[in-house]
């Protein structure tokens, strides 16, 4: 229906050019700038819905392909396309950006235009990362994303923002440059930067292992996996609410997306060889970081650690398939694990975004993130407490919320691989409930702790709209995940068929 429009280019360039326009308009007309930003982000969201409407869920092939020469000297193309993996992530990006713009509406007071523009430009770059079909184009979007994020944390962040943002930048930069070297090596072998060509390229095991490690550095830092997760709590705590939301909801997903798009299909044999290692890292993240989250007294830090723990499920789901396939010789278990990982990514985008927004709502009123400064918030903010209840339960994986679907699928497929893997993974159901609900209890329930809490005002209509949208998403995908699974199913099945075939010999 919309196939004639270059939707992917629109998704990338509308927000970027909109951001430039916003910058040009400047701070003098702050309100105009806000409405302009909102309009641009809503229009972009509409484009992504059109993309979804026009998407053919029966095939795994790339759709909405755009291809034109960019750097002809080296065969680099401006080559875009989406499949069942990229589409949900693009939808998540555009949806979250609208929320973030709304969330910063009254809160951001200094340099409003730059703030809004940074998020718009970031949105365009994120869409570009998910849509790029050329390795170098992907890399350009991937790295360029760091610049607006660096500024968002550094300019509008908390007291230790400079430390946090430089740590964030250098950590992610460190991971990605080795990915670049891997791309260059692959080019020297394949003579092309086209990702599809790289998928088809036969490689020896040693080369695959080295490339896998280079990719792992980039993606593990981004996800982040234990033990390279230490930048995340700092970045989350210091970032403004909008920055935390984008960071948790989308930037972390880049790492997971990278595994699906690059590591697994380009180096299947190395992935198989390292699968055990990856599973162990994932389990450490799930269980150990769960315990770490339990002892946090800063709410944002707690959610940040909970993110690391939940993202452990994503990597577990992606790499569990190898041993299932080896024992059962059927793809269905592996497909279930990988789909679980994908659903977990999307659902975590909603839930962690929502929780960060909830903390933001309280922080705007109290200017504290410490759990001990709160208590009895339900007495003064009943509506807010209800919303946060839902998100807290979703975070602990309550059936009926989207948090349950992903975790359940991953645990179920882990059972097929090994009881003990499933056992460790399932501890998250206890730990997740423990740290989330305990925090909820301490903050929301009980008697009113102090006079600051007594003076709290319940959420206004703007905040209600934001949280309501997220609540609907969390419940919708919890009760009826079929649309999401339908979109990704053919792609994941095809991906696994490819991955399970050795590139050696």
């Amino acid at each position: 229906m919309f196939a004639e429009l270059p939707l992917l280019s629109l998704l990338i360039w509308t927000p970027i050019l909109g951001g430039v326009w916003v910058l040009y308009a400047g701070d003098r007309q702050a309100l105009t700038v806000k409405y302009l930003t909102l309009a641009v982000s809503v229009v972009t969201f509409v484009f992504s819905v059109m993309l979804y409407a026009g998407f053919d869920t029966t095939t795994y092939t790339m759709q909405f392909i755009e291809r034109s020469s960019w750097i002809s000297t080296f065969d680099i193309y401006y080559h875009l396309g989406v499949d069942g993996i990229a589409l949900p992530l693009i939808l998540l990006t555009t949806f979250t950006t609208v929320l973030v713009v709304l969330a910063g509406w009254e809160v951001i007071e200094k340099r409003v235009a730059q703030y809004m523009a940074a998020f718009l430009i970031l949105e365009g770059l994120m869409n570009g990362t998910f849509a790029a079909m050329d390795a170098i184009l992907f890399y350009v979007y991937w790295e360029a994303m760091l610049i607006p994020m660096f500024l968002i944390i550094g300019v509008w962040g908390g007291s230790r923002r400079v430390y946090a943002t430089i740590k964030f930048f250098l950590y992610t930069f460190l991971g990605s440059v080795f990915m670049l070297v891997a791309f260059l090596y692959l080019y020297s072998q394949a003579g092309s930067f086209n990702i599809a060509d790289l998928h088809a390229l036969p490689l020896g095991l040693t080369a695959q292992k080295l490339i896998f490690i280079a990719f792992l550095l980039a993606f593990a830092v981004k996800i982040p996996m234990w033990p390279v997760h230490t930048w995340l709590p700092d970045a989350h705590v210091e970032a403004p609410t909008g920055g935390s939301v984008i960071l948790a909801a989308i930037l972390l997903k880049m790492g997971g997306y990278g595994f699906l798009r690059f590591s697994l299909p380009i180096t299947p044999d190395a992935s198989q060889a390292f699968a055990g290692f990856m599973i162990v890292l994932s389990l450490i993240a799930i269980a150990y970081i769960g315990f770490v989250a339990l002892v946090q007294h800063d709410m944002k830090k707690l959610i940040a650690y909970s993110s690391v723990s939940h993202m452990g499920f994503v990597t577990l789901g992606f790499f569990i398939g190898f041993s299932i396939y080896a024992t059962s010789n059927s793809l269905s278990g592996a497909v279930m694990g990988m789909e679980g990982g994908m659903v977990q990514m999307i659902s975590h985008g909603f839930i962690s975004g929502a929780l960060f927004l909830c903390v933001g709502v309280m922080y705007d009123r109290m200017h504290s993130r410490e759990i001990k400064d709160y208590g009895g918030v339900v007495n003064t903010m009943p509506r807010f407490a209800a919303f946060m209840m839902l998100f807290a339960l979703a975070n602990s994986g309550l059936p009926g919320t989207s948090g349950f679907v992903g975790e359940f699928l991953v645990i179920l497929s882990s059972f097929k691989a090994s009881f003990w893997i499933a056992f460790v993974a399932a501890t998250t159901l206890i730990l997740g409930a423990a740290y989330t609900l305990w925090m909820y209890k301490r903050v929301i329930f009980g008697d009113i702790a102090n006079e600051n809490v007594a003076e709290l005002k319940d959420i206004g209509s703007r905040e209600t709209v934001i949280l309501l949208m997220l609540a609907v998403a969390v419940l919708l995908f919890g009760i009826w995940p079929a649309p999401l699974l339908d979109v990704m199913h053919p792609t994941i099945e095809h991906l696994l068929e490819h991955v399970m075939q050795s590139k050696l010999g």
Partner: protein
Amino acid sequence: MVNNLILVVPELTLLILACLALVIDTFIKNPASRGGIYWFTQTSLIVTICLIYFYCPHQPTVAFENSFISDPMSTVLKMFICLISFVVFLYSRDYLKENDLLKGEYFILGLFAVLGMMVMVSAYSLLTVYLGLELLSLSLYSMVAMHRDSQPATEAAMKYFVLGALASGMLLYGMSILYGVTGSLQLTVVAEYIVQQSDANHFLVFGLAFVIVGVAFKLGAAPFHMWIPDVYQGAPTSVTLFISSAPKLAAFAMAMRLLVDGMFPLLGDWQGMLIILSILSMATGNIIAISQTNIKRMLAYSTIAHVGFLLLGLIAGSRAGFAGSMFYVIIYALMSMGSFGMIILLGRKGFEADNLDDFKGLAERSPWFAFIMLCLMFSMAGVPPFVGFWAKWFVLKELVAVDMVWLAALAVLFSIIGAYYYLRIVKLMYFDQPTSMLAIKASQQMRLVLSLNGLVILALGLVPNVLMALCISALTR
């Protein structure tokens, strides 16, 4: 003879114009009209650019019995040298005016330096290389010393002169050995002689080592980098701006002529030496730059790191690798020009904005120029979409293509260390509060050209193809 002369028309014209400027300057009595020399200089450069374009031969052509060559590489590099010098003089004018340095000598010496660079780029015998190099160096020594009453400038000039003379001596010694072994000053003859040698000639390698030392000195590669920080910091900013931009192109051309045109069969020997120089430069430059508080000095160390990176293309030893180095050096000159231009822009009469703290809160004082500086810094750090990324990408790609993945991996590791101090400038501009809210005072043309300079960095990053193709075609004959 006429054929010979036609090939050097741009150089001859520039020489005549420079001499003319010298004469005109002596007749200008009124200090107020000193600026006239500036316009004369700029016109000369434009005329030279046009002549280079019109007189470029379709084929590589040699003249004066193989001691001068005009080929696509020389055409491209000369045009960029003139263009960059043009912008440098434009940036310099405000600075010179405010510091009472606006004298004819500055521009005349500048013109002679440009002439020296052009000779270096086209040199095809050991003698011409040396002639061009000395013309350039002597002009630069005196430019550094222009600010006679400034103690740091005088000190810098002395250091530059003594170390520069030492380097020239080394180079000359290497050249004399080459001459002794091969019996000729012409690079073609040298190259032929080396090819005919069946087994390794240790005298040749001995000479080569000294030549490399000379080249490394002029480029500023560690461990021959000692002069760079002192000269960059001590010299008047406009001179630093000049030294850090166009002469790098000439030094690159010198390396190309001597190592590739003259001694390509010794690739295996000079490759190893360059690897050591390159790694040392990237390490020294990037690590020491972190601890600097003076931005001129910090950029000096960043230069050393960039030189290490641009050597990577030469190390690759392929035509495409050389093209990568050429792309890198051009981009580096553009970025360096913008950064030093920014220091000039922020300065005022009697005040040099050369401390890192002077950049504090620039985003509030002038959002536009803070953005331009942001482009320059991220570009130097090699972050896409700015063109500095493509420069690094290009040389790394050629390095990987010749199976030197380990060196590429080492290079990116150093570039992460380098990213830190560029980020610090962005941090100062965007995250800190300004210490003064004084408005930026600069002429319209300076603002315009500096803005263009920054935007070119961004635009080339979005569409790098044209310049890449130009560099490749200039080097694949």
